[in-house]
């Protein structure tokens, strides 16, 4: 079976550079902005920026697994909110015999499991029922979003301090989310670059028909990518709800998707599947988060941010398409 999939290649800096389009852009952005807003490199801003990157990276990483397999997951905003709310329900009705710590562990577990379950359901629909990923995830966005609204009746749930410490605690001066996200990045890199699952994922994304003929478990691979994405959405749900001390059906707005897909695409993940690396996604997340941070520091209005990000993602997609047609 191993002979049917591409072998693991040694690290190719030129190839990595072409996938991580964001790296030169990041340097140029900072260089351009520094004279206008020197505070971009202040310690306070760098910490805010690092946390924004961590949040975006988790989401973009999950999205990238799905995109590499040739799919897309538009349900992330609804899943993030649903995970936050599912956890909040655990905090709202804690077991009186247990301490606050066990309630936090339970809440965290429920949040992550909610993401995994929704991801698995989407994966089954896309892989085994052969439904189009766009429609499946769009329908999931509506069903999960509506279900969360129904479950909460539009109420917001304030979360306990024991839980929000996940976002705000600084052991040895380092924010916990950065440690968690670093671990996620290492695991994701290992999974994509050094495991059979990773090689199958690229093979399925490049050409599912050929992969099927070669005897690869295409359905299982595609479904697994959605499970990974669901887990990442669950983790983002933990971070977002801890950050805002709140869980609700409107925890994040749908335009978080724009940031997430932009980060993946700018980081070199192909919308047509089969291509993408963790380093690229990280660079993409840094770039998109930096643009948002820069525009906030410039004091520009929200719609300027949207226009800028929309323009950048459009150009990145155009570049992606142009690159593919050149190779063809």
């Amino acid at each position, binding site marked *: 079976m191993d002979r049917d999939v591409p072998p693991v290649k040694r690290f190719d800096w030129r190839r990595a550079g072409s996938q991580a*389009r964001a790296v*030169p*852009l990041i340097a*140029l*952005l900072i260089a*351009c*902005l520094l004279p*206008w*807003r020197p*505070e*971009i490199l*202040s310690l*306070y*801003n760098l910490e*805010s920026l690092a946390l*924004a990157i961590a949040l975006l990276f988790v989401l973009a990483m999950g999205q990238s697994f799905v995109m590499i397999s040739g799919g897309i997951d538009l349900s992330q905003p609804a899943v993030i909110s649903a995970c936050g709310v599912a956890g909040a329900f655990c905090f709202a009705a804690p077991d009186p015999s247990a301490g606050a710590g066990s309630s936090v562990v339970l809440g965290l577990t429920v949040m992550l499991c909610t993401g995994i379950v929704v991801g698995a359901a989407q994966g089954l629909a896309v892989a085994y029922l052969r439904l189009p990923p766009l429609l499946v995830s769009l329908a999931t966005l509506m069903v999960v979003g509506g279900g969360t609204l129904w479950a909460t009746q*539009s*109420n*917001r749930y*304030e979360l306990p301090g024991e839980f929000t410490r996940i976002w*705000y605690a600084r052991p040895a001066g380092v924010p916990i989310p950065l440690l968690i996200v670093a671990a996620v990045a290492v695991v994701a890199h290992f999974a994509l670059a050094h495991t059979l699952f990773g090689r199958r994922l690229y093979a399925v994304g490049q050409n599912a028909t050929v992969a099927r003929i070669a005897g690869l478990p295409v359905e299982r691979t595609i479904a697994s990518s959605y499970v990974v994405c669901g887990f990442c959405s669950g983790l983002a749900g933990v971070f*977002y709800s801890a*950050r*805002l*001390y*709140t869980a*609700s059906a*409107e925890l*994040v*707005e749908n*335009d*978080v998707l724009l940031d997430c897909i932009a980060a993946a695409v700018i980081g070199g993940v192909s919308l047509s599947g089969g291509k993408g690396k963790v380093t690229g996604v990280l660079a993409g997340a840094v770039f998109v988060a930096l*643009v*948002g*941070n*820069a*525009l*906030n*520091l*410039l*004091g*520009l*209005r*929200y719609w*300027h941010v949207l226009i*800028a990000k929309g*323009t*950048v993602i459009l*150009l*990145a997609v*155009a*570049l992606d398409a*142009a*690159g593919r047609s050149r190779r063809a």
Partner: protein
Amino acid sequence: MGGFRALDVVCIGWLIAAAAGCDAPRADRLRLGVAFETLQTEYWVASYDALAAELQRQDIEMLEAIADNDANRQLDQIQAFIARGVDGIVVSPKDASTVIPMIKAANRAGVPIVIYNRRPAPNDGQSVTVVADNFELTKATVSYLAEQARGQGKRRKAMILIGDLGDRNAIDRRDGFEAAVGEYQDVLEVVARVPTDWSQDKALAGVTNALQAHPDIDFIFTSSDFLLPSLVSALKNADKYHRTGDPRHVLLAGFDGDALAYQMLVEGYLDATGVQDVYFECSASVDAALRMARGEKIPAIVRDPGFVIHQGNLAERKEQMWGAQVFAKASRGQAASNGP
């Protein structure tokens, strides 16, 4: 590679253009960050304009940010204010809970923070809230309307349009309504409580359904004048939109005091509204931020008592009604654009 350059040029050109559009700060001027959740309704626009005018009057630089209903984005904007070293922050938050991390972020950075018009949930952060006395003002408004009902000697079927219950203001207004109704049970029976989540669509659907289920509703309070267009539309469809004096007139009251409420008062469709004093709230917010920056101790809540405006006192109090000023300004603008 050619594509690379195109992308670079667009991004950098855009940033340079954006940066060029920003004013260079004057070192001797105080700087206040003003973060609004939305400018979706007339009330927030009027508040924003009043704050800008007050800051200009006091020669204070204003950094602005609109979050477009996204609490995450608003927290990012507050952090950007802090990174830019503002002397104080005035924030109009999305709800009572999501403002807590903003308060704590400002506290950690030692920046005074004033919460405009929405009371935060109980927390251990340091902030000052400038807010209308929603409970008392609603109670007074609904009591005025109930007195009209009692005066007409007719038992009425009542309906309330409730706001987003994640917003403390909506809860206080609902409670103010219930408290007033409790004192007038001889003339009022509440038959419909319509949740709107501060959404015109939900308000229209909810009121339409309520009027179908209870066609005899003839006493309505809306928790915000911002919902009046939906309410009027549903009343017109049910043939229940008539001026005062008409026997089919539905007793109608609101809260905020916006331009449409003023127009409806003048035309005789609206009986009363609880007016929030935008100008007082804005000057009190700026004053609170400056006093906190000087290290003065001030109460955690500064209350705007507001006032009830109705058919009986419209002429004498319209000058204090912000909606009347907005209406007059819009009318002048329209007259100017029509030309001689």
